[in-house]
């Protein structure tokens, strides 16, 4: 039995229904599993939603969880992936005092080197956006923290798999 915990990304294709988020999160809650991050969005298929959930658990556990998720009537298909299986990103926003942009030259260098993007600037504050791996976002956070951050927010992970997911075929099979 695999007992080593690691980060897994779960991708769930579902019908777009009220209450499904509750149903899915309850599966984790009941087993006392902490969700590291969760993102829901539309998918490449019209009317089909995609959940991306990041969890830290053993492979044995995640297989059981997948079974429970797939058992839900409105779940079309669920997958789990390791980091190697996916292209993944997170995104974050920083709100910082505009004065600092002019007073602290170092901030400009940090922005350039990190490939962060200035979303907006006004007299009081500017907003910086950065997408990438968690470690890159954390590095930028550490660097900017020294100067003072007014607000910070980071999104859940979103991930695309390297392998093909045959959802469309699956849905077409139902029609026939």
């Amino acid at each position, binding site marked *: *039995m695999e007992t080593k915990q690691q980060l897994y990304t779960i991708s769930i294709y579902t019908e777009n229904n009220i*209450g499904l988020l*509750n149903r899915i999160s*309850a599966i984790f809650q009941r087993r006392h599993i902490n969700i590291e991050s969760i993102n829901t969005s539309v998918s490449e298929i019209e009317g089909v939603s995609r959940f991306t959930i990041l969890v830290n658990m053993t492979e044995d556990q995640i*297989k*059981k969880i997948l*079974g*429970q998720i797939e*058992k839900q009537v*409105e779940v079309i298909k669920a997958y789990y992936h390791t980091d190697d299986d996916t292209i993944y990103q997170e995104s974050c926003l920083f709100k910082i005092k505009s004065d600092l942009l002019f007073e602290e030259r170092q901030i400009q260098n940090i922005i350039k080197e990190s490939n962060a993007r200035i979303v907006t600037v006004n007299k009081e504050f500017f907003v910086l956006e950065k997408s990438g791996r968690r470690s890159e976002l954390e590095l930028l956070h550490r660097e900017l923290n020294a100067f003072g951050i007014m607000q910070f927010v980071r999104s859940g992970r979103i991930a695309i798999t390297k392998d093909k997911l045959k959802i469309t075929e699956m849905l077409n099979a139902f029609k026939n």
Partner: protein
Amino acid sequence: METLTSKQKEYLEQPKERISGSEAIVRCLLAEGVEVLYGYPGGAIMPVYDELYKYEGKINHVLTRHEQCAAHAAQGYARISGNVGVAMATSGPGATNLITGIADAQIDSTPIVCITGQVPSHLLGSDAFQETDIVGISTPVTKWNHQITKASQIPEIIARAFYIARSGRPGPVLIDITKDAQFEEFDFQYKKCTGVRSYKPVPVIDENAITAAAALINSAKKPMIVWGQGVILGKAEEELKAVIEKTGIPSAWTILGASAIPTAHPLNIGMVGMHGNYAPNVLTNECDVLIAIGMRFDDRVTGKLDEYATQAKIIHFEIDPAEIDKNVKTDVAVLGDAKTSLTKLLALLNTNSHPDWLKKFKDLYTIEYDKVIKNDLHPTSEGLTMGEVLKEINSQTKGEAAIVTDVGQHQMIACRYADFNVSKSNITSGGLGTMGFALPAAIGAKMAAPDREVVAIIGDGGYQMTIQELGTIFQNKVPVKIVVLNNEFLGMVRQWQQLFFDKRYASTEMVNPNFVAIAKGYYIEAQKVTKRENLATAVKEMIASDEPYFLEVCVEKENNVFPMVPSGASVSDIRLD
């Protein structure tokens, strides 16, 4: 394939007609073949009750005395008939009272549809009178649930509810309908649901898995079958019997699998689990191939998991993919419904017999008989035992009765000793262990199968949890036979207190009322037995009665149920005393 009654066709795919949401609900039920439903009216569901009034004679609504019992009655109805049971309640407390029954149906895979009224949609989320988020509350204990806020959604959602409840691994579905949707008029037309694109009720059978399973079974020297309710839900009793008889494999059952194969079948070696039979528990840890069919390796079955059948190859026939490897790692998993899988399997099996192996079961049975069964069924001490009451019921019903049990000592005794000749005859709360289940479930069972003898066997504790259903029984003249085995204790908890808590009987002693007087208060014929010499006559009178009948049997107060696999112990460490 489901066959439709002419009555159903009357309500199916008729030309569109403008009617109210509430009338549509009743017509949907009729189109699904519902003849009886159980429920309790209240503000938010009143429009539907008004329609039930108009449709009287076409559909029978049974007023239970508590919504929990409406759900249990629907369960009893479903368990004995294999059809979907229906329960109805109003919003708020009416809906929350259903939850215990819904949770019970979820863990025991019972197909029921619960319909709840909800406050008008413009009041949702406003903490309105009797508003509760029943969809949120019921989510973890339903197979599916949905809230309807527009009348036009009613036909499709109710069709889907029935389809989901009954298909695949069955379960409870809750549909919450706002009051404005009940009043709203729309163009009604009903079509049965034949599929939901995100839902695969029955997995495709993998022929390779069948072949691998057959090869393992054919080469096994000491094979053992453990079947569960999947056989009954999948209507695979005949197929299972054919497999057992062709291979000569000793076969045991889980509590919910009881009655799928007649008790007296020579290869039926009894119940597995905590209070199951000695031989199948002990030999679980000696068999070389364990064939699990439609069961889910519940902890009450397996005992200590890492000492459960570790020497055996495990084959698991199962309809629900989530059950594979959930508790016990399988060597061969055969996904699919039991009927198809077993039919395919049968063709690949060699005719065989295992006389030496079977003899081991018989030998251990003799040990169990001498140490436990003899004293349970033929006691020499003065006090009555629960076992001898069961023996008397067996002999007077000739094993043809459906036995509905509650939870506790009497339940274990009933499952151990009841004779079952007919499938779907053991109706009990297995997974959830819901005290108070039996009396309302018996009502549903008797109404679904009026030609069958339905005997509810209940402890004095559980009986008082839903005793008010005597009112339902009386008002609807439901001729159930009610046997209360009264030991003036919450017996199973007391047994644990005796064995594991140094006899500290905390809150388990019951000072009971006059049960006979209460039954008679509901105009139900009743009598009480305290002495062995009166037992047979009393049971005879009860069975002979065409009306509801209540029989209280005062049994030995501090008897224990054995064998017993203590909590956390291995199944082979089962105790005989």
